[in-house]
C-alpha cells in the first residue's frame, strides 16, 4: 500500500478518476471527517506532522479536482492507473492557466519548511511518486558527510527543527553535524547515538551512517588545525 503522501488526489479521496464534482465533494467531506484535526484516526495512526500534511493534501485535492482546468492539468501529469488507459476528459475551453491551488500549496509547503513536491505532484511522467524519495543513498563508496545528511533530510522534506523535534536531538547538534563543525560535536559515544537517531528518522541505515560519519570525525581530529 502506498504511503499517504505518495497517493494521488484520487487515491487520497478514494474516488475514480472519472468522479463527478459532487462525488469529489462527498469524498472530501468523508476524508476530512476521517483524517481531519481531532479525529481518532489522525490521532492514533499519524504523527502530528503527518496529520497536518495529510489534512493539507486533502484540501489541495478538493481545490484541484473541483477546478476543471487544474484537474485537467493534474490528470495530464499523473501516470495512468495500472491496467487502465488514461480516462478521456473533455479538454478545457481555454488553455489552462497556472493552478492557484497547487501554487498556493507549494508556497505553503515551502513556508512550513516542507520541501516543494512533498505532498505535491510529480514534475514529469514516471513512477507514481508525489512526495520525497523513499530512500537516499550516497554515491557508491562515498562516506556520509554532513552535506549528504542535509540532502537526505531535505529529500525527506524535513526541516532541522522537525528532525530535532522527532529525535529529541538539539537543533545545534543537527546543524553542527550537517555543517561538519566537528569541534562542536559531543563525544563519539554520544555522537554515535545522535547519528543513529537522526539516520533512523531519515530512513537511512543508522549503523552505516554513524560508522561512516565517525570515521570522518576521527580523520578530521587526526589532521591538526583542520577542524579544531
Amino acid at each position: 500500500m502506498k504511503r499517504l503522501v505518495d497517493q494521488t488526489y484520487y487515491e487520497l479521496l478514494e474516488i475514480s478518476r472519472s468522479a463527478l464534482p459532487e462525488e469529489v465533494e462527498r469524498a472530501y467531506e468523508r476524508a476530512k471527517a476521517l483524517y481531519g484535526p481531532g479525529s481518532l484516526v489522525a490521532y492514533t495512526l499519524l504523527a502530528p506532522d503527518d496529520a497536518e500534511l495529510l489534512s493539507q493534501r486533502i484540501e489541495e485535492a478538493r481545490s484541484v479536482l473541483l477546478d476543471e482546468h487544474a484537474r485537467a492539468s493534474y490528470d495530464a501529469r499523473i501516470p495512468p492507473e495500472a491496467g487502465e488507459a488514461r480516462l478521456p476528459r473533455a479538454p478545457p475551453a481555454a488553455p489552462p492557466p497556472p493552478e492557484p491551488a497547487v501554487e498556493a500549496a507549494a508556497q505553503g509547503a515551502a513556508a512550513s519548511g516542507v520541501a516543494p513536491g512533498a505532498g505535491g505532484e510529480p514534475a514529469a511522467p514516471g513512477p507514481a511518486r508525489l512526495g520525497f524519495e523513499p530512500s537516499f543513498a550516497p554515491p557508491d563508496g562515498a562516506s556520509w558527510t554532513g552535506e549528504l545528511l542535509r540532502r537526505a533530510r531535505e529529500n525527506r522534506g524535513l526541516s532541522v527543527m522537525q528532525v530535532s523535534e522527532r529525535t529529541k536531538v538539539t537543533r545545534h547538534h543537527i546543524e553542527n553535524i550537517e555543517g561538519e563543525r566537528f569541534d562542536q560535536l559531543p563525544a563519539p559515544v554520544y555522537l554515535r547515538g545522535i547519528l543513529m537517531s537522526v539516520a533512523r528518522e531519515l530512513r537511512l541505515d543508522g549503523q552505516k551512517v554513524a560508522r561512516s560519519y565517525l570515521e570522518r570525525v576521527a580523520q578530521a581530529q587526526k589532521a591538526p588545525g583542520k577542524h579544531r
Partner: protein
Amino acid sequence: MPLIETPEQAIRLARAICSDVSLYNEEKIVRSIEQDNFFDALREELEEGRELYRSRVAPALFSRTNFYDRAIVDVILRSKGHVKSRIW
C-alpha cells in the same frame, strides 16, 4: 577541564556515561541480550564510552579501578533484567 581524582566522582561519571549509552542504544541492547552477544554488538559504543571516561579521569585512578566496567553491568545490563535471555 581538570581530571577527576576522587572515586565518587569517577563512579558517577561512569554511571552517567553508561546511562547515556543505554538511552541511545535501547533496541540494540535488548536485541543483543536476547541473542547473547551484548559485548560484541555494543563493542564500539562501550569503547567510545570508555574512552570518554578515560579522558576525564586521572590515569592513576583509571588504572587501579574498574568503575566503568561495573557501571556497564549495574546500569546497562541490570536494567534489562526483564529481557528474556539464556544469559541470566
